[in-house]
C-alpha cells in the first residue's frame, strides 16, 4: 500500500540526476579499453615496448633536457639526466621534468604520450590505451595527462593553437578536462585528469606547467631540392647523428646511410600525411644503418630521418619508425 511518503519518494526519483556526458564518455572509453585489449601477441608487445622505449630515448635526448625515469618502488618520481642534446623535432611528447613520469610512442601514425606526477602503471606505460590504472591511483594532488596526436583531419574543424597549450582553454570541469586543438600537422587531444573533482591550486599550477612541456613537431619551411641535395642530406645526417643519438655512443660507430629525395622516399607517404605533400616532396629520407646493433635487433639498428633544407640550413624534422 502506497502512502504519502512513498509517493514523495517515487516523485523524487524522477528528479534524480544522471551521469554527465563527459563522465560517460570517459567511463565508456575506459571500459572499452579494459574490455577489448590489444590483440598484439605478447612477443610483439615486448618488441613494441622496446621500440617505444628506444623512441622515447631518442625523443628525450632530442628535446634537449634528458630522459626521466621513474622508480617503481618509490612513490616519488625522480629524473635522471642521461643526455643533453640540441633540439630536434623528433616526435610529440612531454619534456622530462623533475617529479614527472612520462612515456611516449614517439613518431607513429597515431602517436600518444602520457605524463603523471605519480609513477605510471607499467601497463599504462605501454600506451596501448588510456592510462586507466594510473588514473585510479591518483592521490588528491595527482595529475595525469593523456595526449594523442593524429595527423590533421581537414573534415574536422578544430581551433588552431600555438604552443604552449593553455590549461585555461581546457573544456570540462571536475576531474577531467580536455584540450582538443590543431597544432602544426597534428590534431592534438589532451585529457587532463586530476585526483579530485576540486583540484588544489598547487595541482592546477603543476598541471599548467606540465601542459607547457607538451611539444609537438612543427613542419619545416622546406626549400626546393636540387640534384645534389640527396648526397648533402646524407652527409648532414651522418654528421649530425653523433651529437643527437640517444643510445650508447659506440653504437653508431661505422654507421652507413642511404638517401632518397622527395617522392622516391620509401616513407614519402608518411611524411606527406604528417606535414603535407609539399614538405614531403621537398624532404630527403635518410636511412641509417648501425652495424654494431644489427646482431642485437634489426629494428634498433635502422634509423630513418626526414630532413629538409630551410632558410636557416638543414633540419631533421622527423624520425620515422
Amino acid at each position: 500500500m502506497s502512502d504519502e511518503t512513498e509517493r514523495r519518494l517515487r516523485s523524487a526519483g524522477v528528479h534524480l540526476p544522471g551521469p554527465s556526458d563527459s563522465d560517460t564518455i570517459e567511463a565508456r572509453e575506459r571500459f572499452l579499453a579494459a574490455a577489448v585489449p590489444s590483440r598484439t601477441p605478447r612477443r610483439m608487445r615486448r618488441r613494441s615496448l622496446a621500440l617505444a622505449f628506444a623512441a622515447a630515448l631518442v625523443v628525450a635526448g632530442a628535446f634537449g633536457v634528458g630522459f626521466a625515469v621513474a622508480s617503481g618502488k618509490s612513490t616519488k618520481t625522480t629524473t635522471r639526466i642521461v643526455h643533453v642534446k640540441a633540439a630536434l623535432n623528433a616526435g610529440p611528447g612531454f619534456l622530462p621534468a623533475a617529479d614527472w613520469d612520462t612515456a611516449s610512442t614517439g613518431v607513429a601514425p597515431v602517436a600518444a604520450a602520457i605524463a603523471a606526477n605519480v609513477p605510471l602503471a607499467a601497463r599504462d606505460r605501454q600506451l596501448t590505451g588510456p592510462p586507466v590504472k594510473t588514473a585510479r591511483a591518483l592521490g588528491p594532488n595527482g595529475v595525469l595527462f593523456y595526449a594523442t596526436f593524429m595527423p590533421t583531419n581537414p573534415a574536422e574543424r578544430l581551433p588552431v593553437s600555438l604552443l604552449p597549450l593553455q590549461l585555461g582553454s581546457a573544456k570540462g570541469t571536475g576531474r577531467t578536462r580536455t584540450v582538443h586543438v590543431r597544432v602544426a600537422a597534428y590534431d592534438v587531444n589532451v585529457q587532463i585528469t586530476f585526483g579530485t573533482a576540486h583540484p588544489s591550486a598547487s595541482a592546477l599550477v603543476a598541471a599548467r606547467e606540465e601542459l607547457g612541456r607538451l611539444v609537438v613537431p612543427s613542419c619545416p619551411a622546406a626549400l626546393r631540392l636540387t640534384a645534389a641535395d640527396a648526397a648533402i642530406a646524407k652527409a648532414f645526417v651522418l654528421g649530425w647523428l653523433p651529437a643527437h643519438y640517444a643510445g650508447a655512443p659506440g653504437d653508431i660507430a661505422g654507421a652507413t646511410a642511404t638517401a632518397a629525395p622527395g617522392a622516391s622516399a620509401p616513407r614519402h607517404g608518411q611524411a606527406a600525411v604528417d606535414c603535407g605533400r609539399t614538405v614531403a616532396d621537398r624532404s630527403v629520407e635518410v636511412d641509417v644503418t648501425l652495424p654494431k646493433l644489427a646482431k642485437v635487433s634489426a629494428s634498433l639498428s635502422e634509423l630513418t630521418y626526414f630532413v629538409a633544407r630551410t632558410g636557416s640550413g638543414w633540419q631533421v624534422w622527423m624520425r620515422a619508425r
Partner: protein
Amino acid sequence: METDADLVLAARRGSREAFGRIFDRYWPRVWRAAYSTTGERELANDAAQDAFLQAASALHRFDPSRALEPWLVRIAINRSLDLVRVRRRFVSEDSADERFGFDEPLPDDELHEALTRLGPERRAVIALHYWLDYTTPEIAEVLGVPLGTVNSRLARALRDLRLHLEAKRNV
C-alpha cells in the same frame, strides 16, 4: 533488440560493439544506483566505473542466462558502500551529526533532508525499490542479503523518513 545473453556471448568473442552496447544500455542506471547510495557525483563515477571495469574482466565467468543489470548494480553498490566507508574515516569520530547529502538537492526539500539522515545501506534499498523499480526479492539478490533483511531495512528506512517528515510538518 539483443538480449543480455546475445551481448555477453558476442562480447566474449571480442566484439567491441557488444561491449559498447552493454555500456550504453546499463551505464545510466548503474550510475544512478551508485549516486543514490553515495550522494556524490565523484564517488558515483568511481563506483560505476569500477563496476564496469570489474565486469569487463569477469565477463567470461558470467552466466549468460542471468540478467546483466543486477550484477552490475550489485558491484556498483558494494563499491559505493566501500567508498562511503572510506569517506567516513575522514569524518571526525565525535561528529554526531553525520549526514549523507546529495550533490544536487532534490526538489522536495523536506524529503531531501530526511534522506540525508539515512545511512547509505538503507538509502541503497530505498533507491533500488523506489527509484530503480526493483522488487524486494530482486534487491535481496542484488545486495546478496536475505529477503528478510531487505524488508527490515526498507521498513526501518520508511519509518525514519515518515518520522522526520511528520516532525517537520508539526514544526
